[in-house]
């Protein structure tokens, strides 16, 4: 079991430029079922992917692959033709929010937006548009979602993951890799790793991810990685206290970040004394979460939480 994505997930790509093509190829090498792409001016064409299989991914495949991905004019047409139930967005920032809304309109139940640098006002609109639709957005500005050995959607390196018991949810890309790597080395492994992204306005938040992991029978514990800015971690702490039945460990980045400066991520900013690492750590500790004092200790903190 896993959450959000699994071996049967059929994935569309929105934005088949250089980045989209590169990561689609990596996903196919991993064994993800990439069923179609959307590109208004290249509809009717077929994008061909060939290469050596990434055996860290889905088991039981030949050593090489050749996959033809058909390109459609609209998401609606792509869904009708392929039955896709997930879409990954690599569309450039000025047009990415529109791509998210198009996927939502077509009823794609899971939309994963990797694009970084989308104007905030566009995302405010997109979230409003998604409000009454039964779809889940992950991101933007995120590495994506992976269920090891089943399905990789996004830009994370597949080989550091291994199937296991821990659900991982994170606002940061490379810190997720760091966490996953440690969980692979200490044998806990992952059910699914979800990158929720570093933007101030995003789709899936910590509470959504925790809810999904809490309901997933295969997930035995959750590792969450937060950072300064906003109050999503405090909200998660309150939810954990009230609802969580599984052990949780966490790391919060940005203890040393100065106030008023955006630390790389658009959402990583302490403003008006709100959003400090100290406040988040305090809230999570009060909720019984085992805190990793440094990112090197994330795997150990998870072990400790599982042993409690």
């Amino acid at each position, binding site marked *: 079991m896993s959450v959000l994505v699994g071996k049967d997930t059929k994935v569309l790509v929105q934005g088949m430029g250089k980045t989209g093509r590169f990561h689609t190829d990596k996903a196919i090498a991993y064994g993800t079922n990439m069923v179609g792409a959307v590109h208004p001016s290249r509809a009717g064409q077929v994008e061909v992917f060939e290469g050596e299989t990434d055996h860290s991914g889905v088991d039981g495949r030949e050593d090489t692959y050749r996959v033809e991905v058909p390109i459609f004019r609209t998401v609606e047409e792509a869904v009708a033709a392929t039955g896709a139930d997930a879409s990954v967005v690599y569309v450039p*920032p*000025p047009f990415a929010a529109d791509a998210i809304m198009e996927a939502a309109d077509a009823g794609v139940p899971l939309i994963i937006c990797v694009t970084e*640098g*989308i*104007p*905030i*006002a*566009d*995302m*405010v*609109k997109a*979230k*409003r548009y998604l409000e009454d639709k039964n779809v889940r957005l992950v991101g933007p500005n995120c*590495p994506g979602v992976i269920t090891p050995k089943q399905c990789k959607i996004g*830009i*994370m*390196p597949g080989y*550091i993951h291994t199937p296991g018991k821990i659900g991982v949810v*994170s*606002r*940061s*890309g*490379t*810190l*997720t*890799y*760091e966490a996953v*790597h440690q969980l692979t080395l200490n044998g806990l492994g992952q059910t699914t790793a979800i990158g929720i992204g*570093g933007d*101030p*306005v995003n789709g899936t938040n910590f509470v959504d991810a925790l809810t999904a992991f809490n309901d997933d029978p295969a997930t035995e514990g959750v590792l969450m*990685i937060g*950072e*300064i*800015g*906003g*109050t*999503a971690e405090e*909200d998660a702490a309150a939810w954990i206290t009230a609802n969580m039945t599984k052990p949780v460990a966490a*790391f919060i*980045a*940005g*203890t*040393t*970040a*100065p106030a008023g*400066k955006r*630390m*790389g*991520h*658009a*959402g*990583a900013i302490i403003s*008006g*004394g709100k959003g400090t*690492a100290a406040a988040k750590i305090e809230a999570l500790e009060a909720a019984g979460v085992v805190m990793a*004092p*440094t*990112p*090197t200790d994330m795997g150990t903190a998870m072990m400790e939480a599982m042993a409690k």
Partner: protein
Amino acid sequence: MKIHEYQAKALMADRGIAVPKGRVAMTVDEAVAAVRPLIEDSGNPVVVVKSQIHAGGRGKGRFKEHPDVGGVNVVTDGISGGIEAAEERVRELATKMLGSTLVTIQTGEEGKEVNRLYIEQGIDIATELYLSVLLDRATSRNIVMASTEGGTEIEVVAAETPEKILKVEIDPAFGLLPFQARRIAYDLGFEGAAFKNGVKFLDALTKAAVELDTDLVEINPLVITTDGDVMALDGKMAFDANALFRHPDVAALRDVTEEDAAELEAKEFDLSFIKLDGEIGCMVNGAGLAMATMDIIKTVGGEPANFLDVGGGAEKEQIAAAFKIITKDPNVKGIFVNIFGGIMRCDIIAEGVIAAVEEVGLSVPLVVRLEGTNVELGKQLLDESGLDLVSATDMKDGAQKILELTR
């Protein structure tokens, strides 16, 4: 992106938001020349001389070179002495202010050099209020935040008298609705002509915030004049950098002299860099990992000299540029390179580090921690390069090693 008060007020005036009349001055003569037209036009013999820097707290700020002069000065000499007296006083003030260093609670001790003044007409104030439009991250919507406590920092009001802050959510599909604007105006105590003007002000301000893609518009104080006019006495605007591509006119208002030179240089190479006060330079891929690297340096007892995220897809040239920017800082006594290669391959990082060291030399200790894609090849390249560097097994090990080497 931040802009100056006078620029924000010009953008507001263009969108029907009432602001006092004023003129910007880069020289003493320009400051003096602004006085007569302002007084003749407004009929008010009072003018205000305001320092233009990208930091708040100007009113209570003081100049290093002239501790008797504040950042904002109300010139009343015109009341009894006429326009000439006002001009004389403005000349005296502008001479002291221009080119001098203003220290406010937001600039830090080093202060900021004042190169622009804004000369504004005097306003007869009846009431001071607070108004802003900003993103509420909890609801993913913009809100109007208002308070009767004008002139005070909103953070102080929030801490001491939170019940005096009014928040109204703006639905992005509709904008601020007229009844919402009326409700805010009632709650702020607007009456008569001021009520009508206040509703109009709110409508124009919230529309401007959306139209211009602002991160923040803050009017503090918003004033009601003795004539019932509603005006932005001060005005602060910050813009979403990701939306500047559709606002070239706003992008053109950038004042690079207000920004850190190293941070600007980093931007040219698509690097995310923030200068800090410590001694250990950091080069990391990914914003979260970069923050965590600073944290771990602090945990083991060191102080980070910077935040530097080279991004997910950096090329060799960017790595070299990042290295040069770090080594330019004279405080840096050692460098910690911490990479978890995902998309970014460790061999590319290694090549970039080697190229940079060959070009700029290396006078401080270097610790490199590589993990992830092509890590073996990356380590091999570094080993074979003959560079004087220390390898680390993980982040904590790296942080400890660079600390030992700089002590």
